[in-house]
C-alpha cells in the first residue's frame, strides 16, 4: 500500500505542493478499480491456480473432481508424459503450421480488402464493409455449421459445383467426375484446408476494418506524392503505406497469431467432436484429453498449462508493442 496515495511523487507531475491538498483523488482510482480487481482475482486466479494444481495430480474420474475421492499426487509425471509423447509433437506441429498459414492468409486477404474499402466511395465502402462485418459477427458455431454443409458430400454447394464441371475437365484435372459422396474432410490436409477457409472467413473482416482505420489516419498527401512521382500501387504500398502502418500491422499479426493458436469451436464443429485425432491442435487436444472418455482431468490440465505458457509468451509481445505506442 505504500505506492497508493503518492501520485505526487511521480517526477512527471509538476508542483507537488500545489497538488498536495487533493488527497481524495489520490485514493479514488483504487476505489474504482477495487471491484474489478477483486472480481478478476476471484474468477481468474482461482481457476488458474487450480489448473496448475490439477496438472500435478492423477485425476481420472468425475468423483475425484467432485471431491468425493482422494487425489493421488503425481508430481511432474503428467508433464513428463505429455512432453515425451510423440503425439504431443504432432499436435504442436499442427498448431504452429496452422497458425502460420492462417495468419499469413488472414493478413493478406484482410489487407487487400482494407485497401479495396479505402478506395471506394463513402457509401459503397460502408455497404461492402457492412457485408464483410457480417462474416465477423456470425457466431463461430453457426458459421462453421454452414461451411460444413457447404462441403457436404451429397447436398453441399461445393460438391454440386464440382459436379457441374464438364466431366472431361473434371476427370483430367482431379481424376474423377462424380463428386457425390466425396469425403472433403477425410484427409487431414483437406480438413485443414477447409478449417483454414472457415477461420480466415471469420477473421479477415477484423483485419480489413483495422487496416482501413489505419489507412484513414494517414495523411493523403503522402500517397498522392508517391503517385505523382510515378509509383505504382505495389510500390507505394511497400514504400509509403506499409512503413507508416508498421505498428498497426505488427499488432494485427500478433493478435491473429493469438487467435489462430486458440482455434477451438471451428475445429470441434467441423470435425464433429473429438474423434479426429490426426488433426488435433493444442486447444482441442487439451479439451479432449480432459473430457473425452476416458477422462483424464489431470493430464488435460497439464496440456492447458503448456498451451497457456506458449500463448502468454506471444501475448507478452502484443502487450509490449501496444503499450509502447500508446500514451495512456
Amino acid at each position, binding site marked *: 500500500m505504500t505506492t497508493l496515495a503518492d501520485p505526487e511523487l511521480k517526477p512527471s507531475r509538476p508542483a507537488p505542493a500545489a497538488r498536495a491538498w487533493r488527497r481524495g483523488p*489520490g485514493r*479514488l*482510482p*483504487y476505489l*474504482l*478499480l477495487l471491484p*474489478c480487481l477483486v*472480481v*478478476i482475482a476471484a*474468477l*481468474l486466479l482461482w*481457476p*488458474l491456480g487450480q*489448473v496448475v494444481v*490439477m496438472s500435478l495430480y492423477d485425476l481420472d474420474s468425475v468423483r475425484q*473432481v*467432485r*471431491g468425493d475421492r482422494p487425489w493421488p499426487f503425481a508430481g511432474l509425471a503428467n508433464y513428463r508424459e505429455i512432453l515425451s509423447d510423440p503425439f504431443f509433437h504432432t499436435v504442436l506441429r499442427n498448431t504452429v503450421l496452422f497458425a502460420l498459414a492462417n495468419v499469413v492468409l488472414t493478413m493478406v486477404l484482410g489487407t487487400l*480488402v482494407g485497401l*479495396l474499402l479505402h*478506395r471506394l*466511395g463513402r457509401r459503397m465502402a460502408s455497404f461492402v*464493409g*457492412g*457485408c*464483410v*462485418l*457480417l462474416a465477423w*459477427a*456470425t*457466431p*463461430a*458455431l*453457426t458459421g462453421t455449421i*454452414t*461451411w460444413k*454443409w*457447404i462441403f457436404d458430400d451429397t447436398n453441399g*454447394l461445393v460438391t*454440386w459445383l464440382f459436379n457441374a464441371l464438364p466431366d472431361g475437365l473434371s476427370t483430367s484435372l482431379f481424376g474423377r467426375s462424380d463428386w457425390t459422396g466425396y469425403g472433403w474432410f477425410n484427409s487431414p490436409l483437406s480438413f485443414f484446408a477447409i478449417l483454414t477457409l472457415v477461420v480466415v472467413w471469420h477473421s479477415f473482416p477484423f483485419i480489413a476494418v483495422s487496416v482501413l*482505420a*489505419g489507412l484513414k489516419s494517414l495523411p493523403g498527401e503522402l500517397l498522392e506524392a508517391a503517385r505523382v512521382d510515378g509509383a505504382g500501387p505495389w510500390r507505394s504500398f511497400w514504400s509509403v503505406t506499409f512503413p507508416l502502418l508498421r505498428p498497426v500491422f505488427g*499488432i494485427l499479426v500478433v*493478435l491473429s497469431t*493469438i487467435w489462430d493458436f*486458440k482455434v*477451438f469451436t471451428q475445429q*470441434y*464443429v467441423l470435425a464433429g467432436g473429438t474423434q479426429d485425432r490426426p488433426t488435433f491442435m493444442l486447444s482441442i487436444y*487439451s479439451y479432449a484429453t*480432459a473430457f473425452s472418455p476416458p477422462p483424464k482431468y489431470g493430464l*488435460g490440465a497439464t496440456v*492447458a498449462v503448456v*498451451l*497457456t505458457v506458449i500463448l502468454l509468451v506471444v*501475448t507478452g509481445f502484443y*502487450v509490449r508493442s*501496444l*503499450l509502447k505506442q500508446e500514451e*495512456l
Partner: protein
Amino acid sequence: MAALDSPAGAKWRWGFLDLVVIVFALVPVLWIASLSFKTPATITDGNFIPREWTLENYRNIFNTDQFVRALVNSIGIGLISTLVAVVLGTMAAYAIARLDFPGKKLLIGISLLIAMFPQVSLVSPLFEIERSIGLFDTWPGLILPYITFGLPLAIYTLSAFFRQIPWDLEKAAKMDGATQGEAFRRVIAPLAAPGVFTTAILVFIFCWNDFLFAISLTSTERSRTVPAALSFFQGASQFEDPTGAISAAAVIITVPIILFVLFFQRRIVSGLTSGAVKG
C-alpha cells in the same frame, strides 16, 4: 474517390472485386438462411433460392422446450454478464483514462493479457470448481466465466473511448458552479454513453457466441445456451432430419448479432479497432 476518374474498364474491374468480396463474406450466411426456409422435401435439392418457402422449421423449433429454454438462457445469461462486466469496467476505465496513478500501464497490460487468455485452459479447472461448489449447470456457472473474459474486454475498449472525451468540459462545468457529481452527470455521462453502449454490444456478442464454456459447464436444459443446445440438435432423435431445425435455430441466434452490426457498424468498428489503431 480515385475510382471515379479512371476509365470505365477499371471501374468494372473494381466492381467485380467488390462483388467477389461480398459473395465470399455472405454466401454462408445466405445459404443457412435459405436452408431454414426450405421444406423437408426440398432441403437437399441444392437450390440456392428455396423452391417452396416455409416457416415450418421456425414453428417447429419454437414449439420445442429444448430451444425456447436455451434461448431464454442465452438472453438472460448474456444480459447479466454484460451488465456486470460493463458496470465494473466503466469504473475501472474511468480511473485509467482520467486519473493518474502508478501501476496504470501494468493494469492495462494485465487486462489485455486476460482478454487474450486461452479460454480452453480454464475449462477443466472451472469444471472441477463448479462441480465441487455446486455451480455446475447453473446460470451463475456460465455468468462468472463470461464476466472474467468480458471485463478485460470492457476495460480495454472503454478506456480507449474515454481517452477521446474532452474532459476539459468537466472543468468548465465546475467553473460555472456545478459540483463534481453534476458535472459528471450532465456533461461527461452523455459523452461517455455511446462508448459504454458499444462496449456493451461487444461484450454481449462475446457471451452470446461462446460455445466452449457453454458445452463444458452445462449438462441440462436448465442452463444450456443456444450454441450448446444446437450441438445436441444434431444427435437428437425428435427431429428426423435436423438440418432444417438447426438452420432455423442458427438463423435465430445470428440475427440479433447481424442487426447490431448493421445498426451500429461505425461504432463497433471504432470499438474493435481501438486496440490496433491509435484513435
